[in-house]
């Protein structure tokens, strides 16, 4: 009987990885170069022609990219202290911790809530509208109140920010967990019925594994949301040590040193992307699925 050639999984993956790695690095460098060129080109043209729409272009509104990069290696406060890059890395670590804890809390809560909503229809009808509405509460306004209140319970400020971060994190996870659990293949459910499997077995062995792609899709969004939540939580709460504090600070002195704020944004962007890539990596390990066949 002719055996269909099916190579072991590991070998195939390794080969594909090596092949595409080089291509991807090349593409990345190309995109960065194009973006750099676009920025400098736009800047040069607008200054030369003196155009003021959509906004005036000068060294304050659009500093040179090399100025922004150089600012990373200068001291923001003249003379003393570390160079900006080091300070930002400390701040990033501070914010990242808050975001990570918030992410863990929010994702766990979101997942459990999603499971609960999927199992009990009444709970879903009663709570889902509020889950959705919860995201319309302006976090920025509520953040200082949360920090003060938890502070009176002797909770460290950074943890309060983590709680705020978890508030933005749980929502996508809840919605997608619910959707994933509800969209299990009917035939697979029938099969479980034929095995006289109880509802817990069905949940654990079928529904949840089948929902993992949905859940990871939400986790990718949540990763960013947790960082946004952490930054938003820090800003009005006068927490100086994190990225939010730096952004508020550099915003005040923007006209003097615009590069500092841009440099901070650059680091914040890298943090967001890094966190995102961690989730993508985790997904590749946890979720084994057939490659999609779509056009």
């Amino acid at each position: 009987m002719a055996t269909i050639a099916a190579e072991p999984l590991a070998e195939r993956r390794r080969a594909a990885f090596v092949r595409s790695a080089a291509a991807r690095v090349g593409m990345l460098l190309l995109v960065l170069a194009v973006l750099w060129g676009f920025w400098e080109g736009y800047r040069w043209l607008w200054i030369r022609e003196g155009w003021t729409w959509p906004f005036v272009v000068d060294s304050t509104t659009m500093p040179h990219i090399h100025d922004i990069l150089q600012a990373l290696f200068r001291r923001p406060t003249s003379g003393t202290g570390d160079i900006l890059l080091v300070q930002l890395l400390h701040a990033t670590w501070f914010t990242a911790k808050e975001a990570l804890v918030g992410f863990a809390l929010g994702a766990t809560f979101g997942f459990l809530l999603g499971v609960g909503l999927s199992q009990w229809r009444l709970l879903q009808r009663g709570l889902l509208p509020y889950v959705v509405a919860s995201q319309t509460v302006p976090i920025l306004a509520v953040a200082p109140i949360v920090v003060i209140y938890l502070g009176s319970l002797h909770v460290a400020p950074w943890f309060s920010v983590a709680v705020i971060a978890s508030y933005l994190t749980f929502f996508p996870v809840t919605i997608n967990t619910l959707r994933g659990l509800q969209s299990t293949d009917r035939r697979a459910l029938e099969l479980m019925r034929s095995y006289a499997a109880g509802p817990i077995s069905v949940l654990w062995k079928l529904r949840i594994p089948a929902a993992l792609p949905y859940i990871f899709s939400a986790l990718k969004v949540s990763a960013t949301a947790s960082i946004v939540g952490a930054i938003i939580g820090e800003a009005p709460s006068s927490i100086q040590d994190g990225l939010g504090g730096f952004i508020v600070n550099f915003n005040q002195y923007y006209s003097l040193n615009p590069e500092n704020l841009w440099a901070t944004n650059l680091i914040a962007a890298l943090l967001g992307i890094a966190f995102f890539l961690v989730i993508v990596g985790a997904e590749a390990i946890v979720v084994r699925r057939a490659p999609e066949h779509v056009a």
Partner: protein
Amino acid sequence: MSVVTIEGVTKTFDGGTTALEGIELAIEEREFVSLIGPSGCGKSTLLRIIGDLIRPTAGTVRVNGKPAAQARADRDYGIVFQDAVLYDWRTIARNISLPLELARWNRRRRGERVQEMLRLVELSGFESHYPWQLSGGMQQRVSIARALSFDPALLLMDEPFGALDEMTRERLNLELLRIWEASGSTIVFVTHSITEAVFLSTRVVVMSPRPGRISDVIEIDLPQPRTAATREEPRFFELVTRVREALHLGSDHDRDLTAPRTAEAPS
């Protein structure tokens, strides 16, 4: 004692369609019974009623001497669908061991049985593969291995080879007969294909639609074990013709087509 006893089973769905009416059937141990009929005759519904996946509106079904619901709870049967329904996130080995996990077998026993089953369906060596790395025919063999893994007395199969090409189908038919012989189980097999039904079965149950009814039961007296050569014997063709005629008789649609034609110039 019959493995399956069906008495007076009727099934009406919401909306008024009568899928099955007054079905009476007894299936003995080690039989291979095919259910065949046109679309809408209720054969898949009947299969699911035997498996307690659908409850009949009237009548009783006993499997292994117990009510169908009890038989399902006791895991007395395995089921194979047209779609292999393998879990993408489990390896082949773990897919086969799924019912064993649910039956709380310990790990060593599960491992041994999985190896045994892979040998039975001739897929040894594919334990660590994933379903999407296998062809359709191989996936179905895994599905059969899984259905037999806990040694059920009864195997229910709903057009398992329907999505495969003819050559693979004929090969898998021989495979199935070998597995049937080796495992000693009873098989109820739903199919669209007349030749497949005759080739595989000891009895063919012909059904007709609107409402779903058994219109004929035909004994297949071809010698066992059957081989590829069996398909070329005269008796095979006779039986195929008999089944075809029974199908046409049972079907309203074909009854109208075989009505005598009015004036039409012969060419």
